[in-house]
């Protein structure tokens, strides 16, 4: 048994390295600057760390405001995705109804159709609804991109929660809505957090729709990334690193709510 355990542990460590080493190299390139980027052969550790490019980014006028807007948009997107996605996912999991598969396909349409191609008519529509250049507008757009995750992931979760538990609750006098809320929700919560993470991260990283739908009120990603791809590599690396910090932190923060629930779930 201990041999198996060692095998698992090695696997886990190898996979961690597979994820982390490339990230370390991103950081090395971002902090090492041009000398590291152009070096051959590459050093594993940059000789002199330089936070100059990073500092330059943070000193750009409006970065702080863009960060707040990005955060606002991502949080709104998370709330909308959960609010719209969970009921729909529950319906798909618990009921057989005419049009269920059509609904699945409809939800996926927003992801199946490249959003950049849709951008012009979409933006015109948002402008007519008065949503242009507002955080709410961008959040709604991002919700549409996150909705397939919310619906499908929550549907698969509810499907795996035994129906008997709910039926038991009905027997004890709960209404279906109470049963869903008091019995099913706690069990599904870890998965719901997964939905929330997806929504937050999708919104935080989305560039194209955000920059097309906004002018004065840009999210951090649109504010920085819009100018990044034409910038020298030093800036691209620094900006790339800068942008992953908030989303990785967010995953870290909700991680406890997410996966600390194993005890309940594995019963």
């Amino acid at each position: 048994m201990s041999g198996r355990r060692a095998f698992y542990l090695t696997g886990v460590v190898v996979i961690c390295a597979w994820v982390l080493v490339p990230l370390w190299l991103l950081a090395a390139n971002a902090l090492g600057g041009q000398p590291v980027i152009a070096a051959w052969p590459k050093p594993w550790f940059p000789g002199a760390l330089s936070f100059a490019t990073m500092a330059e980014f943070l000193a750009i006028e409006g970065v702080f405001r863009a960060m707040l807007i990005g955060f606002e948009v991502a949080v709104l997107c998370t709330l909308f995705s959960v609010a719209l996605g969970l009921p729909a996912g529950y319906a798909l999991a618990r009921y057989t109804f005419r049009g269920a598969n059509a609904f699945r396909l409809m939800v996926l349409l927003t992801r199946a159709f490249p959003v950049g191609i849709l951008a012009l008519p979409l933006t015109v529509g948002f402008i007519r609804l008065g949503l242009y250049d507002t955080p709410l507008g961008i959040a709604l757009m991002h919700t549409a991109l996150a909705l397939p995750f919310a619906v499908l992931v929550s549907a698969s979760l509810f499907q795996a929660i035994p129906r008997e538990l709910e039926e038991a609750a009905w027997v004890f006098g709960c209404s279906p809505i109470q049963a869903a809320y008091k019995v099913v929700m706690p069990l599904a919560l870890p998965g719901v957090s997964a939905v929330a993470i997806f929504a937050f991260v999708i919104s935080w990283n989305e560039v194209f729709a955000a920059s097309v739908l906004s002018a004065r009120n840009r999210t951090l990603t649109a504010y920085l990334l819009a100018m990044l791809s034409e910038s020298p590599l030093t800036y691209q690396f620094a900006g790339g690193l800068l942008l992953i910090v908030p989303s990785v932190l967010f995953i870290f923060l909700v991680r406890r709510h997410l996966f600390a629930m194993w005890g309940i779930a594995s019963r």
Partner: protein
Amino acid sequence: MRGRALPYLLVAPAVIFLTVLFFVPLVQTIALAFETRTGFGLGNFLRMEDDLNFHDAVVNTFRFVGLAVPLQLAAAMGMAMMLRHLGRGRDLVLWIWTIPLGLSDLAAGLVWLALLNDRGYIASLLFHLGLVAEPQSWLTYETPIALFAAVVIAEFWRATAIVVVILVAGLQLVPKEYAEAASVFGASPWRIFTRITLPLMKPSIQSALILRTVLAFEAFAVVIAIGGRNFPVLVSEAYNWQNFNQEPSVAAAYAVVVMCLSLLATVVWLWLLKTPAEQRA
């Protein structure tokens, strides 16, 4: 269960939301794909089909999706099972594994370019091991196989986390008692995995496959970062027609093709991994 209207009430908000914000632009764009100078027809599709890169793009897209998605599913399944065997530190490991989820496409493309380009870290590693003496070019039109491998590896690194999270969320709802019971009766771990765990995880696997396949058809930022002009896929061609050639109707034709492929794949997954109602938990 109260009345037949309940499921419709539950999906209604999402349906209304999508209809109001998306249905109209979507229909407009699909119509644009069929609009030609002389009226409605397949003109844009013919122009698309006639284009230099179309056949390469189709072949590349299928090779890419066909290899990346199964690889990711298998790896994510393995990772989810490994997590089950961990005690303390499980959430830390899971956090590390899901970090790529938080990366933008731009950052992921940069990471792999830094690793794989001529003077990248992989070439440097081989140099330190004494295997190569010079910077190596393997991301060019002269090295199509290495280029293809690089694109798949980069996408594998970036987007496996999404599958892992879905499968982990699903796996934790599979009761451990079934496996324990089977184990008491002498079933091997592999048998338990294939006969008990996998079937119980079908809904999650289905969701993961659907989402991943749809997203793989859409992936192009990393593909362009690594493949440049050498690895056209359908979506990157759609963007080229939209942005560089300024011909939105041909771009729309490409987008319609991508959409049909995605929906077709979805239908296949829905059908292949159907969970009959009576088997539902």
